[in-house]
């Protein structure tokens, strides 16, 4: 028979605070663990502040991953000579993924110079064009892989093979977490489809598991398993948590000096809080109408992407270190082997307003200095045509851009040949890019290492160097 116990009921209503709880359980050890747990900002491995002033400015990264390979020569890297060669065979050797490349194809879009820096942007990015003076263009990026998934691995981890830790995990590992309830590394993908390569793209590899990218979806329950099952009410769950605390407390008392057990106790407290805090970060209805429209939330075409970018800004405010957003997945991507003129225009109109809005919003809130925005795909596209009106993959010379976070604004680095095919000066490998991004965050790419498989490994593994010219 159950006994009615009013004292107990009272205790469950007055749930002990974490501090009370931890100091009560496990004696001295509890206090010790508490001290470390309360130190929300984990130790940062940043420390390299030598060099230019821009180094070390980046606290968070928002990486806009245009999945499928956006065409630099149709968006930013204007090549007037293509018009001259239009319809003619490419003079020289061209390496394409598909054999039998077609003739050279000029850009279907018009270009114009913008801003004080005079950077060229094509007509399909009108809103973004107004922000060119915030951007650092890397116009001669290069990669080792010509096919999507290996190239995506290359962009994210520096190797074409699956399984190496990605740049987001390295950043989180290097900078430590600073958000109380949110993960350090968040990933969002296009609601229409996920990128090929799946969860391997945001893999933490051999780095500790807390640096794994956590998928956020633009819904009230953005994280997997965040939603409480219907049959478990909040009060029932609170009661469960209370019982759990008691049982774990007794167990800890029998196992002092096991910090893992304390960390796990804390993980349940965080999980309980996250149900409201993670939902809050996604809930953009708290933003003003003006802000919402800045990100294009009132435009059905770009609402989904705008929503994700606005979420990203809210996460940056909350201290999330690295947010990677994939635009385009295995369908509705930037991989236009045919019908490029129309399809690229479509992708641009889905992303133009949101990206412009993000840049403006970050600046007006004073966040742009500490937030690095990266735009790019896994490679670019060839000057030659494919299937009459498309372009093949070009990993040899393609465009990416950076903004904020201590990168040099209104600056263009690197140059491709007259076709926009191969670099002619200042080409940037993915390792250079990684080294520079880590540098902007105050991390030394040679120094940020983890012992695995017989040696100290790093993101760049003795390749790549910091491009100091693009650090402000």
């Amino acid at each position, binding site marked *: *028979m159950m006994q009615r116990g009013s004292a107990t009921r009272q205790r469950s209503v007055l749930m002990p605070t974490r501090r009370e709880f931890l100091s009560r359980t496990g004696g001295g050890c509890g206090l010790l663990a508490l001290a470390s747990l309360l130190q929300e900002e984990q130790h940062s491995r940043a420390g390299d502040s030598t060099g230019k002033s821009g180094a070390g400015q980046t606290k968070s990264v928002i990486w806009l991953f245009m999945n499928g390979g956006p065409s630099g020569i149709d968006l930013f890297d204007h090549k007037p000579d293509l018009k001259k060669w239009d319809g003619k065979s490419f003079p020289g050797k061209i390496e394409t993924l598909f054999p039998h490349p077609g003739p050279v194809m000029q850009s279907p879009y018009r270009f114009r110079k913008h801003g004080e820096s005079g950077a060229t942007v094509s007509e399909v990015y009108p809103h973004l064009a107004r922000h060119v003076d915030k951007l650092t263009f890397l116009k001669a990026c290069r990669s080792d892989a*010509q096919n999507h998934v*290996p190239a995506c691995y290359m962009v994210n981890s520096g190797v074409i093979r699956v399984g190496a830790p990605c740049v987001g995990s390295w950043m989180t590992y290097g900078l430590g977490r600073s958000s109380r309830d949110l993960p350090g590394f968040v990933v969002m993908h296009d609601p229409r489809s996920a990128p*090929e390569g799946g969860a391997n793209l945001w893999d933490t590899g051999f780095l500790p598991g807390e640096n794994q990218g956590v998928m956020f979806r633009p819904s009230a329950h953005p994280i997997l398993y965040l939603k409480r099952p219907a049959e478990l009410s909040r009060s029932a769950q609170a009661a469960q948590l209370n019982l759990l605390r008691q049982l774990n407390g007794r167990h800890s008392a029998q196992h002092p000096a096991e910090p893992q057990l304390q960390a796990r*106790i804390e993980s349940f407290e965080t999980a309980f809080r996250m149900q409201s805090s993670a939902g809050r970060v996604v809930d953009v209805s708290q933003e003003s109408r003006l802000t919402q429209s800045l990100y294009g939330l009132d435009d059905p075409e770009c609402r989904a992407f705008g929503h994700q970018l606005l979420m990203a800004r809210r996460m940056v405010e909350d201290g999330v270190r690295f947010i990677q957003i994939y635009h385009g997945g295995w369908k509705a991507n930037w991989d236009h082997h045919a019908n490029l003129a129309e399809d690229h225009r479509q992708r641009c109109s889905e992303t133009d307003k949101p990206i412009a809005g993000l840049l403006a919003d970050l600046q007006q809130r004073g966040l742009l200095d500490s937030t690095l925005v990266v735009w790019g795909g896994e490679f670019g596209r060839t000057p030659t045509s494919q299937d009459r009106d498309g372009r093949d993959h070009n990993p040899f010379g393609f465009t990416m851009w950076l903004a904020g976070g201590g990168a040099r604004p209104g600056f263009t680095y690197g140059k491709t040949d007259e076709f926009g095919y191969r670099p002619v000066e200042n080409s940037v490998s993915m390792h250079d890019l990684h080294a520079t991004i880590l540098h902007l965050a105050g991390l030394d790419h040679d120094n940020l290492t983890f012992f695995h498989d017989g040696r100290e490994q790093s993101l760049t593994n003795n390749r790549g160097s910091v491009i100091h010219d693009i650090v402000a």
Partner: protein
Amino acid sequence: MAVFRNAFRNWSAIHVRWTSLICLTLCGVLVYGGFGWNSEAGFHEFCEDAVVVQYSTIQRRNAQEKQEREDQENENRRQKHLKADQETLQERLKWTRVISDVHPPSEGPLRRAVTDVGATHAVAHEKAQFWSFQPLNRPTPPHVQSTTWLRNPIDRFIAAQLERLGLEPNQEAERQVLCRRLWYGLVGHAPPPEEVMGYAADDRAMAYERLVSRLLSNPGFGEHWARMWLDLARYADSNGYEEDELRPHAYPYRDFVIWAMNQDLSFDRFIRWQIAGDLIEPDNPLAVAATGFFTAAPYNTFFPQEAERFTELDDMVSTMTSSMLGLSVGCARCHDHKHDPIPTRDYYGLIAVFINTRRTHSYLIPDGGQDYRILADPVNKRLEEVKQIRTAWIKENNIQELEGFTEEEKDLLRQPIDPDNMEQERLISLCERCLLIMDDQIDDEIDALPQDETRFAQLLDEIEGLEANLPPRPPMGLTLSGGAATQTPILIGGDLRRRDGEVESGFVTAVTSGVPVWENGAWEAWDESPAEDSASVPRRALARWMTDTQRGPGPLLARVIVNRLWQQHFGQGLVRTTNDFGQQGELPSHPLLLEWLACELMDNNWSLKHIHRLIVTSATYRLDAGADPDSLRIDPENRFLSRRRPRRITAEMMWDTLHLAGGNLPVVMYGPGIQPPICREAVFNTQKEAEETWPIRTDEDRSTLWRRGIYVMLKRTIPVPIMQLFDAPAGSFSCGKRKITTVPTQALALWHSELLRRQARRMAERAVAEVGAITVSEMDIREFIERVYVIAFSRKPDREELVTGVEFLQEIDDADNAVPKMQKLADFCHVMFLTNEFLYVD
């Protein structure tokens, strides 16, 4: 700490030869096992058989300038490390890290491997002197003072160290705790309640040993222990990369490993079969399936590029050497290994062994599928012809598709198919892919035409007819075949475009004796008498070399595997870097014990179960988990094993125990894996719609899905969330030790996932039934709680826990009368799954 910091600053090099071991002294401070001694005498007190030798006396080469330069580099590197790692200094100051950071550079054979690839051939393959490369000498278990707690020779090695440190071992753990520990340790899940109660009541002599014997012959043993090897073999059930197709014929390899563990297949044979089972015992389907070790790797099927073939070969060699020998041979791909005596020459010698191998599907029936072939071969032959005609037809009709190929390439394409010609294979694959793109269009066009008018359609019909006439196909496995002797170019810096000479098959020089490995044909020393009708095959020679205890790395193989078993039983290996027995790895905490265990393995026909039995019947294994202040102060990480530390169970162990608790884990062994439904949000990727890729969560609870965790399919791009969250590896690289991650998303998954809720409900229903209650309302709540504790924790609750449990159930009762009682009981069971006691086993 202060001692170590000093040591860091002023290290001087003194090597300590300790039986066959070399360790290092720093500034006259001998550092060992996290402890420093200020004098040689002090060190000898700790380890009496150590012989300290001045480093200078073993110096043999004078490379003063180079050394100074490297010293400076080392110093810079060390300073950087120090700066970056102030916070984790304590962690880094484990003695071997210290050694690796300040190791005297470029002296003796260990450092003579040149870093200039061009000079690779000039490397003298002097026998390395590193401890793990030495022959095995069986040590005598040391004499110790306190003999009362000892149970077998393992304990003597442990006790000797503890006595030197002045540590007392803990008491033996309680019987229920031991029973639980053994079940998790040998079978991989919690014991059934009746087992715990039975064992607790069994007061006969040798009850423990009897339990060990029973568990070692429990079929669940293999299902648990196979997982360790599958982690090392980076096993998964799909290809990975863009297409990430499921591999329906991958599982026979998994089943082979389970079988081998259960049968206690001698470990040397286990290794040889995996390298060349198809060549050594071609008529034995298990031996053939074993080569799935190499084909378990990720594999890109979508426009594979030549560079990826070398990445694949690299993976094969790296995975083999790190899992079997604990050597990171892969480091020598671009340059001679910087720390271990592994020149690039050795690396490409191993690549040459595999460069002619192929991924293939083999029939896994005793005669290699001969009966089937007699029936099927004529049909298949015609089928091939027809398919070739079809391909040719497509080619003829799509000549423009071949425009991208050179004349030479076209010539190669026209020649008969040669399975060993990689270039041709690549071209055919490229060509077919181009054609396939057109294929759909062709099919459309064909459909539009009257069927009987097209030759193509007739061919399609014939193919269909032939396929329908094939007899039922025997089981197949994804295996490795081929591997004729050949040469391979050395790629400078691993770069395909920079080739430097050719090498033929060879093995790792540093662990070979008596045979000059780099001489042409030297590998044949291990493949002297192949069957009359067949040529020597380097892969078969490699298999024999690998387990050769006299001329090959057999002793190292033995050391590495016993260390892995030790890690699985104690949470850390005697050498904690289980995949690295080289210079960058740590030295063993109990070197003589490691040597002794390796000898035991080799002298007992490489029986792993013999080693398991030795380990779990030792007194050391049975210690309880209490921690006294001395032990915490002197040995916080418990490297010297004066106590037991609670260990987190793995994702699979959790999966199994959850199902066991819910009463739905029937014994169903082997066969194709299961795809447990997961929620839609967790299904990423692939060309197909989510539903076609992985079953989406429904509330169905089909009994065909009640299998142990080892049978849960691993699709590389769509990991099952609960498995991934609890650190099951992704099958990308060989995993010698699982990470132990604690993150809030795990808590969310345990709290909210359908799996946990369902198992909690099942457990509640089961417990109600088992206490013999007719209706829930009449049930004695205390009996229920007791039953739940026994199921979840293998013990009865104490008084306070009973009261807490009653209060909880009472509380919800009051809070919300609308909630059905069974729901409340399930909520209670659910909490058991969330506790630390559930996830951590003492």
